């Protein structure tokens, strides 16, 4: 999968604790997740209730995001979908991060054939267009959230592995690591206690911003009919369901996308805040 070689918005690290953006982003995500469990009471509409007398109502005070082809409240459904999208996007970033950190640390610390094999594999995966890799993997495994997670894990560990390997390669030559080895500490202990903690901050910042990428993969897969299937509710799937009615009922398709963008903003704030905190 192609990593964004130079992620815009990252080049300037301003001074400051970073607490304000970190908190804002975290609160936004927490609110969205909490709202997904209380979508019915919050909107006053049952997200699953079809009402054919209320089809295609445009956005009003009653239905903030309008209603869809079955008369369901789009806002309530967007909120419910957050309960699917947010946990999966989070896992879609965390699982590859863990795999990549472990493999990268091994490749950097052990070098030799193991390191070479891991990095060759990384080259191969990185050269491949991410959506094509995802679609082929989901085809092999069958559609669904689980396949998405496997696809994300296979495709996205590469960036972490490179990042961590780079740091580990640099650190293993440093005196304090040599000293730890000379003092007779085992490789596992040296790696876990003395090397890895220094490689983690960067990986954590990247994982935070990677949630956006994972979410866009999940939404795209579901949009293509290869991800979350009905009766599950997911933003990309909602966008696909509304597309046939784009001419006169644009809100059915357009509104769920706003939720994806909101998550993007929140995640960007969290990643930016984390970066400032960790670089102090």
């Amino acid at each position, binding site marked *: 999968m192609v990593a*964004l070689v130079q*992620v815009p918005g990252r080049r*300037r690290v301003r001074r400051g604790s970073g607490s304000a953006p970190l908190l804002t982003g975290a609160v936004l995500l927490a609110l969205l997740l909490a709202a997904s469990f209380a979508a019915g009471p919050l909107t006053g509409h049952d997200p699953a209730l079809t009402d054919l007398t209320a089809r295609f109502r445009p956005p009003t005070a009653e239905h903030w995001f309008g209603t869809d082809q079955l008369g369901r409240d789009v806002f309530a459904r967007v909120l419910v979908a957050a309960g699917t999208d947010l946990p999966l996007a989070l896992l879609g970033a965390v699982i590859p991060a863990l795999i990549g950190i472990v493999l990268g640390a091994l490749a950097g610390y052990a070098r030799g054939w193991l390191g070479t094999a891991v990095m060759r594999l990384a080259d191969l995966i990185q050269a491949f267009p991410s959506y094509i890799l995802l679609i082929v993997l989901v085809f092999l495994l069958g559609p669904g959230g689980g396949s998405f997670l496997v696809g994300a894990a296979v495709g996205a560990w590469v960036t972490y592995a490179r990042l961590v390997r780079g740091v580990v390669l640099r650190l293993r030559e440093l005196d304090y690591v040599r000293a730890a080895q000379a003092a007779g500490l085992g490789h596992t202990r040296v790696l876990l206690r003395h090397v890895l903690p220094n490689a983690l901050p960067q990986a954590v910042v990247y994982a935070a911003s990677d949630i956006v990428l994972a979410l866009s993969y999940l*939404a795209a897969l579901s949009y*293509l009919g290869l991800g979350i299937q009905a009766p599950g509710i997911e933003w990309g799937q909602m*966008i696909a369901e509304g597309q046939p009615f784009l001419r006169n009922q644009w809100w059915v398709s357009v509104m769920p996308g706003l939720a994806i963008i909101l*998550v993007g903003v929140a995640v*960007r704030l969290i990643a930016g805040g984390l970066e400032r905190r960790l670089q102090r």
Partner: protein
Amino acid sequence: MTGRGRFRFVGKRLLQAIPLTLVLLLLVFAMLKVVPGDPALQVAGPRASAATLEAIRVHLGLDQPVWLQFVHYLGRVVTGDLGTTATGSTKVSTLIASGTPVTLVLLAVSTVFTVLIAGATALLAARRPDGLADRLINVVAAFGVGVPTFWLGIVLLAGVALPTGAFPIGGWGDTPATVLRAAVLPALALSVSVAPVLMASLRSGIVEARRSEYHAAAQAAGVRGWTLTRRFVLRNAAVPPVSLLAALTTLLLSGAVVVESTFGLPGLGLSLTQAAQNRDFNVIQGLTLVFSLAVVAVNLVGDVLVALLDPRVEV
């Protein structure tokens, strides 16, 4: 690098691509072994007798050792025989031949848009580093990456194509003019997500070129305005992004797969998603092969271009 050194570099890089291509072929071949379900059972249907299944296995060559199956697969690939679609009506190679020009046009138009958007914003942002425009562009670019391409496509359909009627609501054209018109909106949706990456690289290149001694010397020699920008800034700022070329093309190709579905463009990407939806194994396998070879080629061309443009690259 001397002319001869360049020649040797290109030759060496070509040779390196051969084992990679073989590995990819092996992986694509192995897909058949990973896909759940018995291929013979899929051909024969669930009620077939054991004898029929065995006959089909022999017919498909599944009774032979795996390495021989791979050799046979290689032979078929070389002769362009990738099997037929699940319905048996179309050859996979025909499908690929008809989809390739669509995807290539989409990629070409997207590349033009990406370069235009990234170039204009980078010049604007680099005019005063850390100024208002720079910060604004940086924020928009940072959030722009998180906007799903297919959703942007839908917004363009609902907000531009439907109200104005100037663009088709989906599908492809049959004359150069209608083809270009059909490609504009999907290409725009695609480039918005890729342009920020190129913009960031170009911007830092421009800022660096403006701070350089040759820029100061040119200025002192009386070179002004657009000539100064074109000859002394852009030409030097364009070198680092060239190394991004392969990565950017891969990003565009990746996005094209999704955006082709949004706009119903009959390209390779739409075939891939439809085949995944219909569980059409031959089509998926054939397209994966084509995409793999395309990626190898793109990276090869990218590396060679960098070597030709940048004399510092070691042979």
